[in-house]
């Protein structure tokens, strides 16, 4: 009895029990806050499922396969908006990936030291500008440029592909993708930059010592090492693009039909909810919009968990490699 292991006794866990009640109340309070954060996550899914139960029951899988959204006839679907979301995000990434990674490479490999910090801060500023401001700018500045200068040229030379059919009015899927790419770039650049900066010097020096040029060092020694970090940055940028609302709402044209070309007025899931929610009047329209929100939530959850998984594996792998 007297030979108790001091490390097992309650008082030796670092806590002299002077005021046990104070400690307990404090623990319970912080535990409650933690529970609230966790509950928030669960509640997001549960409440949206509950709110959309009317349409889940009434339409079932046809909500995911039907192609027409028409509140007057009580017909609802996610398809045109899911297509709009995927197409705009895909084109946005097509623009943002090379620019974002290129900028990250320049910032970490080539840029002189005095340039790195200020440019890094400017990219943070790019991420801090609210999306409604980008949307307003897109509507007033980019839409006329697209309508008058860019889209007629695209229609003339690339019209045969079928991607650029219809009358270019500027308010369309292509413009929305362009504005979205601006919003995805800071995420991709920042995370790629961090993972490239974390590549050990020895990797570069080994490549340099066998006579590699600057680009060969980057391409063969640095990028492969930073690959999973860059992929995670791209996936997070995709998550940002999929859920982006205000910038898209202002420039996509807000037409609730399946887009037929990049010049079509369309709608993403997020812009649909933003546009139609407050004025939703038909029965089942609000539940249908909540179901759309639920689907968007599940997509972004999957994407974010995927990105975290890639990052976690990357960090674990680097821990082993650093030995």
């Amino acid at each position, binding site marked *: 009895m007297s030979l108790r292991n001091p490390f097992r006794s309650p008082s030796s866990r670092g806590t002299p029990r002077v005021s046990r009640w104070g400690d307990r109340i404090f623990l319970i309070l912080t535990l409650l806050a933690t529970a609230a954060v966790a509950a928030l996550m669960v509640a997001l899914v549960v409440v949206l499922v*509950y709110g959309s139960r009317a349409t889940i029951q009434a339409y079932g899988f046809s909500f995911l396969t039907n192609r027409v959204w028409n509140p007057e006839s009580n017909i609802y679907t996610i398809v045109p908006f899911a297509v709009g979301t995927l197409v705009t995000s895909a084109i946005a990434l097509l623009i943002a990936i090379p620019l974002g990674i290129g900028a990250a490479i320049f910032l970490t490999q080539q840029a002189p030291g005095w340039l790195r910090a200020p440019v890094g801060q400017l990219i943070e500023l790019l991420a801090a500008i609210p999306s409604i401001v980008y949307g307003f*700018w897109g509507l007033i500045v980019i839409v006329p440029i697209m309508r008058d200068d860019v889209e007629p040229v695209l229609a003339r030379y690339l019209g045969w592909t079928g991607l650029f059919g219809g009358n270019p009015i500027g308010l369309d899927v292509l413009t929305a993708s362009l504005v979205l790419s601006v919003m995805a770039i800071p995420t991709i650049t920042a995370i790629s930059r961090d993972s490239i900066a974390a590549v050990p010097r020895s990797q570069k020096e080994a490549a340099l010592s066998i006579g590699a040029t600057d680009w060969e060092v980057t391409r063969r020694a640095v990028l492969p090492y930073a690959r999973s970090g860059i992929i995670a940055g791209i996936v997070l940028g995709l998550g940002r693009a999929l859920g982006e609302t205000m910038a898209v709402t202002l420039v996509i044209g807000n037409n609730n039909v399946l887009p037929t070309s990049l010049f079509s007025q369309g709608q993403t899931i997020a812009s649909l909810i933003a546009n139609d929610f*407050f004025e939703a009047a038909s029965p089942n329209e609000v539940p249908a919009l909540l179901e759309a929100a639920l689907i968007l939530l599940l997509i972004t959850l999957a994407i974010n968990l995927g990105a975290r998984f890639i990052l976690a594996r990357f960090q674990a792998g680097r821990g082993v490699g650093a030995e």
Partner: protein
Amino acid sequence: MKFDRAARRKVFSNGMTVLTGLSIVAIMVPLVAVIYQVVSLGGPVFNVALFTQGIPYPCTPHPGVTCHQGGLVVPIEGTLLLMGLSALFSVPIGVGAAIFAVEFGGERRSARIIGLVADVLSGVPSIVVGAFVYALLVIYYPSIVFSTLSGSFALAVIMVPIVTRTCEEALRTVPNSVREAALALGISRWKVTLRIVLVSALPGIVTGILLSVARATGEAAPLLILLGNGCEHPLQGITQEGCALPLWIYEGATSPDQNLIALAWGAALLLLVLILVLSVVSRMTLDRMARRMRGE
């Protein structure tokens, strides 16, 4: 032959350097263009009236008609109210969860799960948060669904993961020796946490709160669902329909009337200045902390 190949590789390498440099330039173009546009169009309405008058009657100038510029008193009040309320709801939860994760969780799985939940929560689109708050309130409190209060709930949900994450990082920078020294003096754990650990981490925590406020201040999407139509008349109270700067930018941008569009640019400039000030102040707080840690 051999020399040619080396020269080609060198040229290719330099070409890629130029391309990556150009991508930096390409990224800066929208930044410069947006700021130029906001300053040049928002500047002219940036006067005293902007802060003293209400939203004007919609009007487009034509011969014989002069339009009222109006001001942003209602959206400014609404945004300040939303900032205060959402911070009030989110800061205790975020800081509490971070304290639990760092001070009680340590390296345990529960601590890592909180970090993961916060990361995933911060990836949830803001429009989904708006729909969530609507769906939740409409069950229990249908009377406040469209109000400043419900808007601040949505902003609080957006802020919680940011506060949790940054506060967690700030608490982890406090060395364990500080905790051990205090505990060795016989001070109880909750007093050590509140009076010593939290105070040492305060600059980091303040930075996190300011950053989350800056992020929430610019959010328009959930407010589009939740605030209702409160911009045209003075604010009625937090359970009534409200207004905010980002929401007003949307309403002005989509209106056909020149004076409302001009006022929306004024709102955009004001919003940018507000967010810039918040991030500069948070950066200064961090710098001061760094200096203090170096012992200057």
